[in-house]
Structure formats: structure tokens, C-alpha cells
């Protein structure tokens, strides 16, 4: 990371600081204030967009810890989201627990399920682990769909009771906007801090080469499972928020396709960087919206084309974008952003 001209780090603490210059601090503060004031001028459409984007970003951050920092491939992330969503919804419906309790419970439940399906990671990795997590996706969704239809709502849908925090019922987009925004900021802060600690460094060592990491004294058993727990905890929190926000959840919200999409968003954004989930989620969600708007237009122009043009367009664009990113920009948008910042700081004397 390059500093702007004239800024010199003379101590380790200065070198590690997240917001080093005044411009960075002001920029971050301004961004947060802008987000806080957004409901004043943003309309309902944008609030819905940002809410669903922010929930996705929380889930992506969990996946980023698991796959981006620790290198454990997971293509079953949306199933862990489902564990959180269903867990918190069932706790709220059956036991009347308040939201401030069901949210962490959903997260911890998803984390524990993640631990179980992370167990194979001790023996296998790479492709085999990817398949084991795909198996996790199918097995979890089977358990939700089939054996207990009275509790989980079976294949159709589960209604989530309305939630309230400190005697205040959350019932419109703006309320949820502040709840989800607060959670996103909190989780981002937590991710950044965790990845700067010894745990984060151990994760990165495992990602780069797990045998070498073990030889250096890192307990693989502990840290791989910890990565699964934390990653799935994030998914569970995202799922709980999603359940509270949409009020109706069904197994169709958490398919293998969703897991693949999440992994794809993370790759487009950039694996192993704090900003990756933000960039990737934003770009793919925006493209998705554009396709959903463009689909009916194309349908009007050429009506003899297929019946579900929007659905087809969404998937084709996502697939094509992911292929192009993997071939031409494998480190994602976050890396591009770093390059952009560097060239801006060194302008006009770049070298």
C-alpha cells in the first residue's frame, strides 16, 4: 500500500493503521453520514435494493473469511444462510424469543452446522471440499424441506413473526434499512479487526499452504474449524436478517444456484479483501436489476424469443461476467481499486 506524498510511517502502529490520513477519515465519515441520511432522499425502490444488497454483503463477508482468507472453498453458503433464517424464525415462532436473541442464535446455529460440515476439511481440500459443501447444501435443504413440515413449513413457505427491538416494532423499509445498515457496519468492523489479528494471519497462512502453516505451528484442526464457524456465523446472521426482513422464507430462496452466485460475487469483487464483498455484491446485484428491467423490453421488441427472457438474461450475463473476470481480472474489482488509488496518489509521476 502506498501512502500519499509526504506521509511517512515511522512506527509499526502507524504502518498498520486502517485510516492513516485525514482524507481517508473524512471520506469514511462522509460515506457513513451519506448512508445514514439516505432514507431522506432515496425512494422505496433504492431502499429495497440496498437492504437486500447489505444482507448479501454480510453473507459474502462470511464467505470471504472462509474462502478468501482461509482458502476453504464453500459452495453451500446459502444453505448456511437458510439454517440461520429458519433457526431464528422457528425460535421466534415456537418460543416467542425476542429478536435480539434470535439473531445471534441463528448465527451460532448456522456456525455449529458449519462446524459439522467443515469436519471433512481436515482430510480433504480443493475440489473434494467443494463437493462436500455442495453435499451440505443438498442435505441441509433436504432436512428443511422434507422431514418436519410442521416446524419448517416444508417445501412451500414459512411465515416469520414480525420483530421488535426494545419495544419498537420494525415494520417498514426505513426501519429495516437502519437495522441492516447497522449490522453491516458492525460485521465489517468485526471482519476487518479479526483479519488483522493473529487469527486472520493464521487463516492467510493456511490459505497459502496448509502444510507449511502446520509446520510453522498453526493448529490446522482448530483454525480451519474456526474459519468454518465464523464464516457460517456470518451466513446465519445474514439469514436471520433476511428472514426478519422478507417475513416469508421458503427453500427456494436458498438453492445451490444462490450459493454459486455468492461465490461468483465474491470472485468478481475480489477474494481476501475487505472491500471485495461490497464491490462484488454491488456490481452483480446492479447487473441483475438491469437485466430484470431489460428483459421485458427485449420481449416487447422480439416477442417470439423464449418465455422467460429475464431469467435467461440474468443467468447468461452473470455467467459471462464471471468467466471474463476469472480470465482477465482474477483478483477482482478490489485489486483494480487499489491500482486506481495508487495511480491517483502518484499522479502525475507514476512509475
Amino acid at each position: 500500500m502506498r501512502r500519499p506524498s509526504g506521509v511517512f510511517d515511522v512506527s509499526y502502529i502507524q504502518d498498520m493503521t486502517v485510516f492513516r490520513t485525514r482524507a481517508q477519515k473524512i471520506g469514511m465519515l462522509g460515506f457513513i453520514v451519506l448512508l445514514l441520511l439516505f432514507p431522506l432522499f432515496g425512494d422505496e425502490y433504492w431502499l429495497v435494493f440496498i437492504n437486500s444488497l447489505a444482507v448479501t454483503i454480510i453473507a459474502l463477508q462470511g464467505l470471504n473469511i472462509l474462502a478468501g482468507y482461509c482458502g476453504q472453498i464453500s459452495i453451500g453458503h446459502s444453505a448456511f444462510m437458510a439454517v440461520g433464517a429458519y433457526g431464528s424464525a422457528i425460535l421466534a415462532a415456537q418460543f416467542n424469543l425476542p429478536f435480539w436473541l434470535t439473531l445471534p442464535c441463528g448465527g451460532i446455529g448456522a456456525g455449529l452446522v458449519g462446524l459439522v460440515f467443515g469436519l471433512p476439511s481436515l482430510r480433504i481440500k480443493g475440489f473434494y471440499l467443494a463437493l462436500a459443501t455442495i453435499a451440505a447444501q443438498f442435505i441441509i435443504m433436504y432436512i428443511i424441506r422434507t422431514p418436519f413440515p410442521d416446524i419448517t413449513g416444508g417445501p412451500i413457505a414459512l411465515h416469520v413473526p414480525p420483530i421488535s427491538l426494545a419495544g419498537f416494532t420494525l415494520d417498514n423499509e426505513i426501519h429495516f434499512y437502519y437495522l441492516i445498515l447497522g449490522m453491516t457496519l458492525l460485521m465489517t468492523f468485526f471482519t476487518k479487526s479479526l483479519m488483522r489479528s493473529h487469527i486472520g494471519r493464521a487463516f492467510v497462512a493456511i490459505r497459502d499452504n496448509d502444510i507449511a502453516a502446520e509446520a510453522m505451528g498453526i493448529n490446522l484442526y482448530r483454525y480451519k474449524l474456526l474459519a468454518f464457524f465464523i464464516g457460517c456465523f456470518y451466513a446465519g446472521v445474514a439469514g436471520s436478517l433476511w428472514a426478519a426482513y422478507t417475513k416469508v422464507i421458503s427453500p427456494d430462496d436458498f438453492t445451490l444456484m444462490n450459493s454459486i452466485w455468492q461465490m461468483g460475487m465474491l470472485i468478481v469483487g475480489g477474494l481476501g479483501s475487505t472491500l471485495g464483498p461490497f464491490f462484488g455484491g454491488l456490481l452483480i446485484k446492479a447487473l441483475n436489476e438491469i437485466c430484470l428491467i431489460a428483459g421485458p423490453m427485449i420481449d416487447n421488441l422480439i416477442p417470439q424469443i423464449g418465455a422467460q427472457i429475464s431469467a435467461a438474461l440474468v443467468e447468461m450475463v452473470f455467467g459471462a461476467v464471471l468467466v471474463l473476470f476469472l480470465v482477465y481480472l482474477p483478483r477482482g474489482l478490489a485489486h483494480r481499486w487499489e491500482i486506481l488509488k495508487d495511480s491517483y496518489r502518484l499522479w502525475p509521476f507514476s512509475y
Partner: protein
Amino acid sequence: MIKLAQLIMIGITVGLIYGLMAVGFVLIYKSSKIFNFAQGEMVMVGAFLSWTFLGLFHMPLVLGLPLALVITGLVGYSLERFPFRPMIGQPILAIIMITMAIAVFLRGLAILIWANYIGIQFPTVIPEKTLKIFDIPISNVLICNFFLVLVLVILLSLFFQYTRIGLHMRAAAESHILSQSMGIRVTRSIAQSWAIAAMVSTVGGFLLGYIRGIDFGLAETGLIAIAAALVGGLESFKGAIAGGIIIGLAETLTGGYIGHGLREVIPYIVMVAVLFYRPYGLFGLEEIERV
């Protein structure tokens, strides 16, 4: 008893088709170390494409199916150039995700082209009749399928064992550098294995689509085929066939005796069990990794 024998027969036949698709997967893995998650989508597109020629354009089987095979083979051949050649040496996550991206793209393409056709069937090739073998009623379509797949698998393994192209592919699978220094064009071998895998998937799609109808759900059988390849071990064709039969039997037996819900996940449960017990499959080679 009769039900059991019938289910076993169906299981073995469906399992052989899974095995055929798993062979396509193993083929690509062996020649280029790429895990092709788009196998299922290739099967689906192959089935839809051959239906377009056979059912929509009313071509005879001897013309329509080879035409579909040629087209899918060409698409498979060109896939090697883009996007797979730049992916050689990339991290495993990138390789897995690029095949998944292609899977998503093919799925979107199939929805774009064929979404209007729902509940379609291949035109009848042989009239369905129920035969009795040892007093067990069995459809003649299943028996034809069984022998067809068997012949195809034997032909494929003969192809690898005795032809020049097959020899080049096996050499490329062994070591890219070594075979290049022996004068083998590795990129061409990999492209050929993609073409063959695509054609094998089309045949698998045709056979499976003939039994159960053609829909977008065919793509999910591709994942089951990958599970079969993993159960058998990624290094061997024999293992792929054996894994396919194991998975096919497990699927039909649970479907027949326990329930449809479990039937859909049993391949993955078998796969996880094998992963725990023998991570490198029943016939696979254990990789020894050094820092």
C-alpha cells in the same frame, strides 16, 4: 422380490448412464486437471439440442443425433481455447468457478432458447414393450439402454487403449511437459477430450431424456454424475462406471422403498460417506502432497 429385482435393473441402467456422464467428467479431469461442473448443463443442452433435431425438425435418428453430436463436439472443442487455456495453472477455486460460470451461462442459454417447450419427449425410436426375464417384467427400452451404454463404454475404453488420439490423451494426462517434449500437441489433446466429453454428455442426455423426459432438471443429474465420479475415484474410467452404478442403485432403491425426498439427496450422502472413509474414491489414486 419382483419389485426389488426391477428396481435393481432400473438402478443399474440409470447408474450406467450416470457412469457414462462421469466418464466424460473423468476424461476432462485426467487430461487437463479441470473439474467440469458444467457436465450437467452439457447433458441438458445436448438433450435439448438432439430433441430440436429429432422432435422439432422431425429428422430421422441416424441424421439428427449425429448432427447434435457434431455441434456439441465442436462447441466442446472450442471451449478449450476460451476460457480454459488461460486457466492452466490457476488456483483451484478459479477453475471450479469458471466451470460453474459456464454452467450458469449454458443454463441461461437453454432457458432463452427452449423455455417455451415444456413436458417434451423424444419421438419413439423403438415401441415400448414389457419383456419378461426370469419372470421379472422389464421394459425393453431399459434393456436397449443398458446394452447401448455398455457398448459405448467398451468402445470408449478401446479408443483410449488402442488409437493414436487416445494414446496422446493418456500421455497428456500423465504430464503436459513430458508429452510436449515427445511431440504431442497437448492443447489439441485437451481440446479433443473436451469434444469427446461433450459428445458423451449429449449421448447421456439423449438416453436419460428418453427415459425421463427432457427438462431443465436434467442439469442436476450432472452433479449426480460428478458425485459418481468422485465415489469411483477421479483417476479411473472403471471407477466412474462403478461409482455410477453404486449411485444409481442407491437412488432407485431409496426411491422405491423410502421416499422421493430422500432419493434426491442420497447420492450426496453416499458421496460424503465415501469422502470420509476414502477421500480419493474407491478406485482413485491418493495424492501425496509436499510443501
